């Protein structure tokens, strides 16, 4: 699955995008965040406050309870500050 990171999530993880094979027991966005947070210190820092993190599946906002099955691209980022 394609993973994309933006703003300080990207900076803390140290990459803008990567392709990862996810274990079968990672079903929801929340579970993916927990799984990523265990990968290394950068991921742990990026996802230290999971409630703050916003997620998009295939470029549409979703909440953390959403199943990720079928998505081509999952993105994680801080709350938006455009406008």
């Amino acid at each position, binding site marked *: 699955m394609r993973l*994309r990171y*933006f*703003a*300080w999530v990207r900076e803390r993880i140290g990459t803008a995008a990567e392709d990862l094979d996810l274990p079968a027991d990672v079903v929801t966005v929340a579970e993916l965040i927990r799984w990523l947070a265990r990968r290394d210190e950068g991921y742990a820092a990026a996802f230290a406050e999971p409630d703050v993190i916003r997620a*998009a599946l295939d*470029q*549409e*906002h979703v909440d953390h309870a959403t199943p990720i099955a079928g998505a081509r691209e999952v*993105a994680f*980022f*801080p*709350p*938006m*500050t*455009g*406008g």
Partner: protein
Amino acid sequence: MPDAPAHVTDIAGETPVIVRVQNGIFDIADETAKLADGRADIGAVVSFIGYCRDEGGRLAALELEHYPGMAEGEIARIANVARERWPLLGVTCIHRYGKIAPGEPIVLVLAASSHRGAAFQAAEFLMDFMKTRAPFWKREHLKDGTTGEWVEHKDTDQQAADRWA
């Protein structure tokens, strides 16, 4: 700075909707003319321009990161909600990315309608949701040459968006 190709999304339907995400600057007179020229049914156009402030002289620039593709898609979704909610005759949303100097415009929203109430409400609605749902992130570049912090989101922006629920 060379301008990246502008993304234009014209959503089918009776309300012309223009969505662009671009590095380059925009001209409010050109955009207003695109929306209103040659039409005699529009009675009101409300526009909003958001500018980069220097925060009391502290900032050299704001840098706007965005999620290409999703930025255009999400703004188009916001525009579609607005035109389902108000009797609009045209909507334009332009959001810049990249480095933007104090005093330069960042975002433009135009809402056209036959009467002013709908145009005012739709323009404010569009901005409230551009702020809270369009995938853009600002970081500060300071006058001393250092890269500053990512701008923190404001609860008041979310509260502004929640008013429309």
